[in-house]
């Protein structure tokens, strides 16, 4: 199981959590951050299935969502289900770091979520 290779940033001045990186805190404009790794499982906040895909995806559809980890890091990822019927806003999902697409024969890794 690969480590989830995203890093969130907690403002040292006001504590606001950011992902992705910002040079200044969105709340207080502080410039010093503590690096935070997403922890534990996650809660699904919203999701969709899209049928018109961008360049780099040779498949019929994609299921995507945004989830919040136990330490409140929020991030987008692909969802490992066959049908949206398996999903519900607020459900617990298990994160993993897996190939999300292939570019010129190379795997591109990213976040995936799976219902628990």
């Amino acid at each position, binding site marked *: 199981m690969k480590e989830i290779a995203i890093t969130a940033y907690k403002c040292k001045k006001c504590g606001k959590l950011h992902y992705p990186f910002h040079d200044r805190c969105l709340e207080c404009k502080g410039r010093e951050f503590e690096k935070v790794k997403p922890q534990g499982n996650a809660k699904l906040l*919203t*999701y969709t299935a*899209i049928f018109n*895909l961008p360049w*780099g995806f040779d498949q019929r559809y994609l299921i995507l*969502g*945004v989830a919040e980890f136990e330490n409140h890091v*929020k*991030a*987008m990822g692909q969802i490992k289900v066959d049908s949206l019927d398996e999903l519900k806003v607020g459900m617990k999902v298990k994160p993993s770091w897996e190939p999300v697409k292939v570019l010129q024969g190379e795997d591109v890794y990213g976040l995936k979520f799976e219902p628990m």
Partner: protein
Amino acid sequence: MRDVAIIGVGMIPFGRRDEDTLMDMLAYASLKALDDAGLGDKSVDAVYVANMGGGMLQHQSAIASSLVDRLSLLPAAAETIENGPASGASAIKTGLLAVASGYYDTVLVVGGEKMREVTGWRATDFVATMTHPQAEYPYGITLPGMAGMFTRLYMEKYGVTREHLLAISLKNQENGTRNPYAHVEMALDREGIYDSPDAVVNNPVSADPLHLYDLCPVSDGAAAVVLCPLEMAKKFTTKTPIVIAGFGQATDTHTLAERDDPTDLKAVSLAAQKAFAMAKLKPADIDVAELHDAFTILEIAESEHVGFFKKGEGGKAAVKGETKLGGKIPINLSGGLKARGHPVGATGVAQVVDIVWQLRHELPKDRQVKDAKTGLTINFGGFGNNVLCFILRRAA
């Protein structure tokens, strides 16, 4: 600061324009606006061109420099302005500030995009390049996908239903049948896209819970306006000048995930509040509006965020007909992005052109708001992370 008037407008029919290059379309719309302003044989001080994809789709850069040469507007100042799907309004804002400041007297603003010469796959990818390059784009998210996630949340929080979304599709495509510039001049049949079993095939899910007819088409097109100080308008034209009474612009987080409440389109609210304050008007004073309905949910959400309706009431108002011609606040009588089409760089300019026609009372009866004096536009960039609002007023 000087009051700024729109003295000329021009548009070419949106749709699939295989026979025209991007530069052709920009030139045709520009000439129409220059002629309309009484400047057909004269020059202007500056030209601002709104375009998002010339570099990516046509492999062409420095588009404004090329356009002034083609239109014999040399030695006018010229810039291309790229601000995603809000490029059009951004270019008008740039012209507005240049004229208001007193630096330039005559400015041509033209927006154009040619999206149909590439495959749907490439056009979708081109628009998706607006998403965050590390936190969103690699996953395959598209703008319809963002709208799908937003719609799911908006439905849960405010009780928006597919009936509400359907009311927008039906209204705007019906409006499009009366607009000779619209990409889609075809009314929708409710049964065929919603009630009958065939609807699953005719109107499939595109970005759940949004269906095909909740999305605007991918279009080619261009639109243009000419600006000058209000005090000079009579020097060029006998047509009623339309004053840019207010404008506002605001931004929001790049990723949807970082918004405390992703259903709150803060940039729309802030842009509208600034525009209303500058114009010294309130939402109830607006006679007609063009909102950025790239997805049906956005017309509902924007109509609430600018203050026409309370949160949760925009969809119900559309079902009741309050946003049709003759209703409380007619919205997207042009057909909106849904029917007029969405050539991204042109859209913000086209919205203003349609409002100018309304305020000059130049449209046929079946599309004209009677005695319209004020109009509002919302041009929505990214997924609401860069939004511009204009309030236009018919000069006394």
